[in-house]
């Protein structure tokens, strides 16, 4: 590790020392220390469950630590509430969920510390003018009186940042700020972060994406299993170093792609369109093939896939499966026909939290495990065991609530659930989003195995390494249309990005 000389002489804006936090049965954080310096971006990296979000909640006053100290400018402080943290100048910009859709832009910026009239009432006029000024500072020319729900995700981010400025924050926490942003919006965010740095803010940047960490951060801190396992300057480290610290072992970004003889066409989609979401989707999917769908978030890939399985109705288009024309009006019919979709939003669309693992797995296959409408538990356990063990699920028992599993293991249950229906075509939408590296590798390996067994796989992914590592062919979508098709041999990251972002090919 490079000697950290620049910041060792600087006084941290906020310093955590020996912070511990445990919940019944879990040590979320043990003896963690972290310092954030003015005018510097510190990246916090770690697998899911490493304790990052617990730390954010302690920093913002949502949780109180069991032990340890928080010093702001050298002075020890306690954050008994979110407002106490805000008063101390610590603010967090979360993923889009942390604003109020039904309130105005101005109120979203000033809620909790709105300007008051001499009588103690909220001064809407001043709030709107102040909001306009703050928005201009972050480069957004928005009308402060419009409702937030009418803004796009990128504008909502700007509102969140304006909010951070409104409390004159000195410490700004960004929790996966780019997760839902487009390519262009991400770059605008980078510029804004640079400006915040220049203003002397101390920034904590939490992300799973190494390219952006190396683009934007000055320092890094790595968490593993609730402990701080490394920190230093970004300039003195490599991606491999960070990954090794995160997982505690060497993990090469190796994709277990097996060479499979591609068979005859299984699924043919032609002229598929929807009034507002996508149009002109035409492709063939062959036996044993992994077909990647690449694009930026919001390119219409999930919308198309969900239409294919009957969640929404297309306005036109034909689907043929094994030379049979299909009309699919509901997921139940899709499953019957042999097309299954493993959705992107695991917690909302995939796992049924509150129900045991085995019941999650057998839900779409109940017609097979039951007899004339009556459940047969033994059959259910048998089916659940067969598929969860193929995915190397780690759980205490099959009767355990799926909500008690880690994200990666939940994803294994979800995949097992749809696989147990014995599909001909499986569509995986962002199958490794937000899961730990170990589970990621297991999912990739399993995907290869499925293709090798003759299943046809569609993989929607926004991660270039995953798309390039796993796909036999790639279709790129942008704004609801197919804008590129690439064979495995001709794949390059640059081609994919250009097609997805709509940048025309420059002269070679």
């Amino acid at each position, binding site marked *: 590790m490079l000697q950290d000389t620049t910041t060792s002489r600087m006084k941290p804006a906020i310093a955590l020392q020996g912070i511990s936090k445990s919940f019944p049965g879990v040590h979320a954080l043990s003896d963690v220390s972290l310092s954030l310096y003015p005018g510097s971006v510190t990246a916090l990296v770690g697998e899911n469950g490493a304790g990052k979000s617990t730390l954010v909640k302690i920093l913002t006053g*949502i949780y109180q630590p069991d032990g340890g100290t928080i010093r702001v400018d050298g002075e020890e402080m306690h954050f008994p509430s*979110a407002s106490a943290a805000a008063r101390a100048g610590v603010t967090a910009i979360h993923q889009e969920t942390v604003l*109020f*859709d039904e309130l105005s832009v101005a109120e979203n910026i000033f*809620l909790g510390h709105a300007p008051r009239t001499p009588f103690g009432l909220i001064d809407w006029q001043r709030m709107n003018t102040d909001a306009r000024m703050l928005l201009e500072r972050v480069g957004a020319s928005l009308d402060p009186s419009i409702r937030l729900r009418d803004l796009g995700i990128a504008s909502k981010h700007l509102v969140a940042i304006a909010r951070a400025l409104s409390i004159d924050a000195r410490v700004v926490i960004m929790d996966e700020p780019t997760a839902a942003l487009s390519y262009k919006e991400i770059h605008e965010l980078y510029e804004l972060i640079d400006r915040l740095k220049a203003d002397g803010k101390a920034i904590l940047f939490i992300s799973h994406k190494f390219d952006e960490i190396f683009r934007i951060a000055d320092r890094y801190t790595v968490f593993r299993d609730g402990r701080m396992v490394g920190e230093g300057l970004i300039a003195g480290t490599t991606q491999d170093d960070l990954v090794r610290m995160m997982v505690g072992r060497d993990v090469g970004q190796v994709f277990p792609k097996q060479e499979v003889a591609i068979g005859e066409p299984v699924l043919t989609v032609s002229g598929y369109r929807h009034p*507002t*979401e996508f149009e002109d989707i035409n492709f063939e999917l062959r036996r044993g093939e992994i077909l990647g769908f690449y694009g930026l978030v919001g390119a219409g890939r999930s919308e198309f896939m969900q239409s294919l399985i009957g969640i929404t109705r297309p306005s036109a288009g034909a689907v043929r499966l094994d030379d049979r024309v299909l009309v699919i009006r509901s997921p139940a019919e899709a499953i019957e026909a042999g097309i299954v979709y493993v959705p992107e939003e695991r917690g909302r669309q995939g796992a049924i939290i509150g129900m045991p693992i085995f019941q999650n797995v057998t839900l779409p296959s109940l017609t097979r495990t039951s007899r004339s409408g009556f459940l047969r538990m033994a059959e259910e356990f048998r089916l659940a065991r067969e598929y969860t063990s193929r995915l190397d699920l780690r759980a205490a028992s099959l009767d355990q609530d799926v909500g008690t599993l880690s994200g990666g293991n939940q994803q294994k249950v979800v995949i097992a659930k749809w696989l147990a229906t014995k599909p001909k075509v499986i569509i995986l939408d962002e199958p490794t989003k937000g899961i730990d590296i170990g589970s990621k590798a297991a999912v990739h390996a399993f995907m290869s195995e499925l293709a090798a067994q003759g299943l046809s796989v569609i993989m929607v992914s926004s991660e270039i390494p995953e798309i390039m590592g796993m796909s036999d062919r790639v279709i790129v979508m942008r704004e609801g249309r197919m804008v590129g098709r690439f064979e495995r041999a001709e794949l390059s990251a640059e081609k994919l990005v250009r097609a997805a972002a709509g940048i025309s090919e420059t002269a070679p």
Partner: protein
Amino acid sequence: MNMLLKNREALLVVAILALVALVTLRFPGFVQPANLGRVYNDTSILIILALGQMAVILTRCIDLSMAANLALCGMVAGLINVAWPGLPIPLVIAAVVALGAALGSINGLLVWKLNIPPIVVTLGTLTIFRGTIFLLTGGQWINAHQMSEAFKGLPRADLFGIPALSWFSVLIVALMFVVMTRTATGRAFFAVGGNPHAAVYTGIDVGRTRFLAYCLSGALAGFAGYLWVSRYAVAYVDIALGFELDIIAACVIGGISIAGGIGSVPGAVLGALFLGIIKNALPVINISPFAQMAISGMVIIIAVAVNARAERRKGRVILKKAEAH
């Protein structure tokens, strides 16, 4: 998009005007100012209660115990008056408002501290409050002749040709408008219902805000309890039985989303007025008063269907046809 929010109320105004016009076709006397004043006066109590319910619904809760709270406070007001006929009426009102707020705070505490679902809590307290009236009175009525003239007279007291009952409701509407739009607590009601998770990060205590909403609805129910008992000059166990549903209906018609976070004071007032007009119009146009219940049922269903349509998110439009070159 502020337009849309205003439109919701505008739509209701149009519906009310249409309703009044329709009634006037059959019975021209309906639009006479004196009659409209009577209709408003008759709706005053519902307006006050709907505003309290609105605060609760905004925070993603519901208060089914409001009518029972009203009945209990009304009975207590009557009992106080019978026991100490000379006690000034403002003191009686202060006592029942405090009692109503205390009863509301029981709901609030159970929701806040024990996390029991609001519908369960208020279902329970609804029966408890009504039962308590029985325990207090043994099922006895308090009749007009037992109440003092001052007690009965206040709602009818005339100021600028308008009864005090109407003035009370106007006052409450004005107060609630200031509370809901200009105070931190009022805005917190919206924030808690709109996005409870985000509210925590904003430094708002979700449970405490809900508690305050219940105290507010309880206090208003207590005040309404005095108004009800003094206006109708009778108190017994079953007064305002089932009225909690009228209150919720007024809110739903007024565009207050049962999912929380959406609503306004004018909406609640208009919703209550809509119900009040129907109630008062039916007899004069010779529709059996027995039809009133069925009609309010239809109105609730239509209102919720219309609201749902307005609230439905427009899907994310990915295809940009207009921009296509």
